[in-house]
């Protein structure tokens, strides 16, 4: 098993390299670059434009569709060089040590500290921008992820064991509704309902938590203004901040969760039905096993295989799952950073985040494969 894992990890290296090349050049296919938005500013002269281009290293054009490659290759190499060969976590421009978690501080013997480039917009290292947003991102995605999986699995099993019953039909309809309503729209409707009817009513009933100025009356974001900032880690929070967080979290959990629940539930149901109709289930029933044992020991364990694969594939969703919804719900997440970087043609930032998603996907697949071997004794890699 161990040798398998090592082999898979080694395979990842060329895969990642190919991904990095494809990602970089596909992103560059879109016309324009970071400077384009300045070009229509009537107060910026040609000299100033050139000055900015020089400052950011964007002098050479990169328009693959027009056959101008030199800039792309240069920028890609710049980025790759930083990632592979950078040995110190020192900002070359200010001479200061970057205050982020770095490989070189933990494993100094490696003499390697990947430098993922800097953001054109803020002039900050990409890694800083990423780490700043990661904790709050996880605060949104982990509960949503857990919610989606913890709800969809039992629902799927329930629906499969009671195929075409009233409950199955209701869940199916709800599931399809959840799938077909755009998340961001659902989020807006939910927020509108909260603002215009739910919280005023609750406040009217004398619940101070929901009256203006209190966390309950706030929509969007993760906290009310007073609770933003401070430690992002839940174990440092006061009770008030916890309540605030939970109140802001549930619309996200509901909106983002609802669409994944629908999909996962349907897959779970299908798999279960598939297995339940196989002959060994009939055998199990025939030899008089209780229905519980038949379903949970014999059917479920076999049906889980596909779910585990899906689980592995959904790992990048933890960081970059619900882009538009995160913006509508005003969450300060990595998705939003990615979206804004894409819009601004912030090349190194986009590239690094894409690579990060790719790594998560590869790791998710590996995890799924390991889990499969663990769950299903028939699967062996050696």
């Amino acid at each position, binding site marked *: 098993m161990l040798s398998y894992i090592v082999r898979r990890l080694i395979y990842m290296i060329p895969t990642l390299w190919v991904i990095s090349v494809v990602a970089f050049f596909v992103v560059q296919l879109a016309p324009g670059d970071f400077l384009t938005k300045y070009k229509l500013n*009537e107060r910026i002269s040609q000299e100033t434009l050139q000055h900015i281009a020089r400052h950011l290293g964007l002098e050479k054009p990169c328009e693959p569709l027009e056959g101008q490659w030199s800039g792309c290759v240069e920028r890609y190499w710049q980025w790759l060089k930083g990632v592979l060969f950078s040995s110190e976590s020192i900002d070359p421009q200010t001479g200061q040590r970057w205050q982020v978690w770095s490989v070189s501080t933990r494993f100094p013997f490696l003499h390697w500290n990947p430098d993922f480039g800097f953001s054109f917009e803020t002039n900050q290292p990409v890694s800083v921008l990423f780490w700043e947003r990661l904790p709050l991102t996880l605060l949104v995605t982990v509960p949503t992820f857990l919610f989606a999986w913890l709800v969809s699995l039992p629902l799927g099993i329930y629906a499969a064991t009671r195929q075409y019953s009233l409950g199955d039909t209701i869940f199916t309809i709800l599931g399809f509704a959840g799938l077909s309503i755009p998340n961001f729209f659902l989020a807006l409707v939910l927020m509108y309902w909260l603002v215009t009817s739910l919280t005023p009513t609750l406040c009217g009933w004398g619940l101070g938590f929901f009256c203006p100025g209190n966390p309950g009356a706030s929509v969007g974001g993760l906290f009310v203004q007073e609770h933003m900032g401070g430690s992002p880690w839940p174990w440092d929070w006061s009770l008030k901040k916890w309540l605030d967080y939970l109140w802001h979290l549930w619309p996200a959990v509901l909106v983002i969760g609802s669409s994944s629940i629908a999909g996962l539930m349907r897959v779970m149901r299908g798999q279960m039905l598939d297995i339940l109709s196989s002959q060994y289930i009939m055998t199990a029933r025939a030899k008089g096993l209780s229905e519980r044992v038949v379903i949970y020991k014999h059917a479920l364990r076999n049906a889980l295989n596909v779910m585990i694969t899906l689980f592995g594939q959904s790992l990048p969703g933890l960081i970059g799952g619900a882009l538009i919804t995160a913006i509508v719900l005003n969450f300060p997440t990595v998705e*939003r950073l990615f979206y804004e970087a894409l819009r601004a043609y912030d090349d190194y930032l986009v590239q690094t985040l894409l690579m990060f998603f790719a790594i998560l996907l590869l790791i998710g697949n590996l995890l799924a494969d390991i889990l499969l071997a663990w769950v299903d004794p028939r699967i062996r890699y050696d």
Partner: protein
Amino acid sequence: MMKHWIVLATLVGLGILLGGCQGVPPGIKPPELPQQEKQEQERKEQEKREAERQEQEEKAKASEPSPESKLSTVGTLEVVRVEVFPSSRLVTRDGTVAFNIYVRNPTANEVAEEIALVLDGERLGSQKAQLKPGETRHLHFQIRGFAKAGRKIVELGGQKVEISVIEPQPARGGVIPIDAKVVSVPEGLSEPGLPGGKIVVATISGPKTLNPVVAQETSSTDVTGLMHAGLIETRWEDYTPAPGLAVAWELSPDKKELTLHLRRGVRWSDGTCCFSADDVLFTYKDLHLNPEVNSAGRDLLYVEGQPIEFLKIDDETVKVIMPKPFRPIFWSLTFAILPKHKLADKVAKLNPGAKGYLEGLKKVLEDNRRALQEISGEKVAELDRRLSALSDAVNTQQLDQVRASVKAVQETLQALQAAVTEEQAELIATLHRALDDTHKIVEQAEANKWAGVSPELFNNTWSLGTPASEFVGLGPYRFVRYDVDQQVILERNPYYWKIDPNGVQLPYFDQFVFLIVPNLDTAFLKFKAGEIDVLGPRPSDWPQLMEGVRDLERDCVQKSSDVTICLNSVNNWKLIRNGPTFGETYLAFNQDVEKVAPDKPFYKALQAVFRHVQFRKAMAHAVDKESIIENIYNGLAVPQWSPVSIPSPYYDKSESFTKYEYSLQRAAQLLDEIGLKDVDGDGVRNITDEFLKNFANPEDRPTDLAPFGPEKDRELEFVLATNSGNQIRERIVSLLVNDFAKIGVKANARPMDFNALVNQLTTSTFEAMVLGLTGSPEPNNGSNVWKTNGRLHFWRYSSKEKPPAWEKRVDELFDLGATTFDEDEVKRIYKEFQQLVSENLPYIYLVNQQFLYASKAELGNNENFKPNWGVLAFADTLWWKDEKRRQ
């Protein structure tokens, strides 16, 4: 104790100077003079800076054609005008009141008269004015500080000026500078408020940097704008300049020099005393004009390619020298002044380090090698040896060796200096400078500054990761914290230099919070939920906001023709509609459209059509502005006809430009007249042979029609693009396409990605486009668009080589507009420009949205919000009328 002291000594000194300086350019005046008290000036160039009251007086006198009417006389001299700083006539007890008195000599002889400054009957001092026949010039007077608060009468040259002296109240935690500015109505304060509380506003995106020099986009400048202040501020009413960190200014008679008198005793937000001319020079010379720095405002500091110069006269006086008279100079003086004490060590130019000084030293010697060689070739060779030893020491960073080699180099230099003859003064000075450099090398080495700072350091200074204590400014607020993508918190600057007429230090709020809300729908909901206090709504949000306004008669106040304020009593909101905004939407045809496909004759034909003014006029008649306003803007817009934004003071209020009323019939007729007819009966007009032969502009007329093919294949058809994602523009395009189809012109709507669109614009490969530019009060900011050599002259780049006559005139008008100071004249210049554009229609202007603004009803002092400042205006004078919000 003598509480009011005026600069009497300098008045007398300058009185003498004035007598003796005729014909001497003011720039040559000895800089050690403490106050540039007097400068000549012509009467008419000053209207821009006129006090509001005086302007009204002027308007009352508008029937008199002669602007040179006298106000009073001093002996034989006529007083034509008195400028008072501040124009509000409100001043703190220790503050500065300044006067520019303009006198004219109407006689045919040279006249000298004494002009006295009298305060409440007590003569404070006088200056002698000596004028040549017919000459007009000004004298500058200042009173610094008064014995006690109250009303004062100042008499100057027979003119009486009433001044209110205000006693400041104790500072809240910090210090109020002695020379504080008293904020009054023109600066945005309608009513004095009470301090306390916090305000929360929404912004679309977090700041990208907090460095005001390099910040480009509004998400950053909105924040830095509150943390910093400029020398000059702009009044909300008429966009005229008002004193900021400069208390008063004088413009020289040749209009090329502006002398600024700085506010005294202003502390930085870290408590450091005090802001001075050094900071001004640092900001402009070492930062904005320093090529290493990525200044976002540098282009405003160049006049026709020449930089504006800044000179320090003394700690309180700065002289700005323009290469040519430059009227928009006041906009360039609104830049944030930055603290030299905090930032000087971040600028490479000021911190070359030991290596930098060594390089400088080597260069000096290299430049003078020949001269030195003549004196002593032996010594020069020795110097070379010793310098290379010094280089080694510096490169290996060995302090002892550096000291030793510097000593050796110094010895050689001194020996050389001794050998130089008296006549070679220049060489002596050079060697002297070289010696200075050697001392610097040791100094820098001792301070462990070997390499000097990187040229990029300043551009990355004050980034988002910088600790809050590093941010120091002169603005109303100080930086506290940025919670990434969530909020920016600012707090009151307790050293701020403005007070209200009750003597309370501004700003009133203790905290100013920007909540970052990227989605406008979410921002709207947050406003509804009461989480944000101020909202800049879209036209589509307006009906919802107005729902709670039951009775338009009772709840709405029409403050002026433009401004309506409504109170939504259900939700407790104040809703303000304030005239058109800056920026405009327009339709442009590419008059170089053959560049789309140079090998296709069709585009050459289309270019002939686009270049034909009658075609563009027909299109202008086919634009249904009323429908655009009603259907797309919910009625919250006005039609626009002129290239100057409607709220700009240079907008032609008489609307003498040509307007094209909506008439499809007229449009069709105009097209018929020039032979653009539908020859094949498919409902779309064709670019006929008749048009090409007889009607196209002579220079566009093809000699040979053969390559163009049959005329029925030349449909009058083009792509009408706009940037996708801008819903308003997309809807405008589809509306235009419909109307154009009715007159047989086939426009194909195409929303495009913004970047692709910019690409087409800058390479002249678009066909037609609906677009908008930001616009501003100052038309000269549009010179990049309008001048034929402008970078954004994208509707006809070829004008650079072959400008049509009217475009040549526009070039002239823009040059004139920037160099003329007489406001009436400037208005005439831009009026002609507006007429020319409306007749020639390079752009067909569409509509201009009204400025919309919503806030909590209890927010005070925001009735005067003007488009130029958006929802952040008056951040220092807003206050909560509700006591609970002030806690």
